[in-house]
């Protein structure tokens, strides 16, 4: 049993009177795809925001591979290897697709060179071309990212996550707004990535969740309601009640699990 990739100790986040994350102690093992599910407002994205340093906790600690990252600034955490996509797809709209990937790759360097021509960096250029092929956006390389369709923006985000060679990848509803075809493409990509990268994914699409997750954690009201492998979650009554709704949905869950 190796060291958990992500771990929190009594993590709490309050916004005024609202407790968004309530005494959360979670431990995610490496080399397994984790899914976080739960109703809206359960604190899933807040959790991601805390881990990536966009929010600082009211109390508690966060550990990344044993290292205390509580209170670190976002770019520091990013440099440690934690990358994420955002719930509302967010790229650099006025840069073209290739440049979006290009700058993501370059951001790893502590020093951005003001003297060389950007086009001259062959290593980065190669990686950009490779990644473009991997996500299938080579034809759109010169287009400003702001003009892309929603599905393509989502793929670009995944591409940006790829090219940055993260050690932990947090995906926030990656298939939200995608067509079924795009969703399959994305799921395949994520499965590929999981071979080399630790992944935590927030999702609402149950097909996707049960299709790729090794472990599922259910959030409700800022705390863990249940966690375990997909079969255990499906059988868990509390989960069914709090989140999945009426008992009729049980059949749907069984189907999805066996799909």
């Amino acid at each position, binding site marked *: 049993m190796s060291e958990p990739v992500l771990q929190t100790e009594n993590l709490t986040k309050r916004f005024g009177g609202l407790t968004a994350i309530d005494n959360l102690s979670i431990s995610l093992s490496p080399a397994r795809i984790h899914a976080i599910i739960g109703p809206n407002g359960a604190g899933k994205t807040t959790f991601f925001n805390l881990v*990536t340093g*966009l929010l600082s906790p009211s109390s508690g600690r966060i550990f990344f591979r044993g290292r205390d990252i509580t209170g670190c*600034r*976002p*770019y520091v955490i*990013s*440099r440690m290897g934690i*990358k*994420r996509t*955002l719930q509302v797809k*967010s*790229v*650099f*709209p*006025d*840069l073209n697709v290739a*440049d979006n990937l*290009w*700058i*993501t790759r*370059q*951001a*790893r*360097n502590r020093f*951005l*060179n*003001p*003297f*060389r*021509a*950007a*086009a001259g*960096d062959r290593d980065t250029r190669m990686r950009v071309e490779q990644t473009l092929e991997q996500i299938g956006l080579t034809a759109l390389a*010169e*287009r*400003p990212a*702001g003009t892309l369709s929603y599905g393509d923006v989502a793929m670009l985000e995944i591409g*940006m996550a790829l090219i*940055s060679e993260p050690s932990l990848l947090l995906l926030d509803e990656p298939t939200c707004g995608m067509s079924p075809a795009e969703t399959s493409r994305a799921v395949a990509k994520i499965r590929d990535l999981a071979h080399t990268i630790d992944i935590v994914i927030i999702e609402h699409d149950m097909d996707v969740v049960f299709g790729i997750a090794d472990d599922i954690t259910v959030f409700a009201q800022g705390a863990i309601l249940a966690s375990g492998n997909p079969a255990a979650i499906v059988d868990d009554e509390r989960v069914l009640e709090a989140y999945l709704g009426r008992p009729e949905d049980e059949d749907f869950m069984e189907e999805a699990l066996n799909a």
Partner: protein
Amino acid sequence: MRRRSIEMALAAAGAAFLVTVPWSIPALIDNFWVSVITEILIWSLFAASVNLLFGYVGLLSFGQALYFGFGMYGVALGIDRLGLSFWPAFGLGIAAAMTMALVSGIFAVRLSWHYFAIITVVFSLIFYFLAVSMKPLTGGDDGINFTLPPVFRFDGKAIGLTDPTFQYFFVLAVVSLCFFLMYRLINSPLGKGFLAIRDNNLRASLIGLNVYALRLIAFVMAGCLAGVSGALFAFFGRYASATYMFYQVSGEAVVWTIVGGAGTMFGPLVGTALFIVIREIVSSHWEHHSLIVGLLAILSVIFAPRGIVGLWNSWMIRLTGRETVKKAPSRLTLRAEP
């Protein structure tokens, strides 16, 4: 490819024109216009400092006149009070401007755009009033005059800016160098980092860019450009005055930049040239030229919201059917983010 050739031809023509100004202009129009064009070059560099921050990093500074003033007074006081010769005075002006930019930038670039904009005004007003109150040193609004030391000395002969042709070429050389450096900067990794911050600073921090540090670097660079233009201005007029540190000077540069095309290389030059030329032409015939300038400003943002260079870019797309590579960014014409 046709678009490229059109633009290269235009650039070559522009360069040819600029290089022959000291002879062509007096022949075609008037000697006076040589100094107008010299002034346009100086002020376009100042506008470029606004453009670097606003067009490429997304920071709207209304206080660049502060660094202009430091450059200007660095030269004036360096020559007048410290007895410095040309190059040390020039260096002092630039160093003073950059130092001031660093010090104020450390505090200012932490803020989001509304607050950043207002604090740049506040800082520049503080030093404006300081300059006004320290009248014995700065001459206040009346300013101080000084005699110009020569630029180069060899074989006992001195060449200085008192020769209008040499002065013109000196200014042209310095301004061209600065624009060239800006061009290299924008196309460098650092420049792309700036663009990323401008487009989406949240995303930028998530991919590992230190937004604060990059903004500060840009701010100091812009301060340097403003300082150089201030120094050139002092050399050009043999004069420095607190009036040029007032917020209206900063505001004008913002207007020139936006009308010319923020986020484009030549936008500041085009905008500055347009306003100054119109002002000079109209004012010699009619005293109420401000009305025309005001009307021009309003009409240009209604009909060319991406600036003149932006308009040119759209024409080029329609003409050649190709996507632009260097158009004015759409972000700047949207509501700026809080």
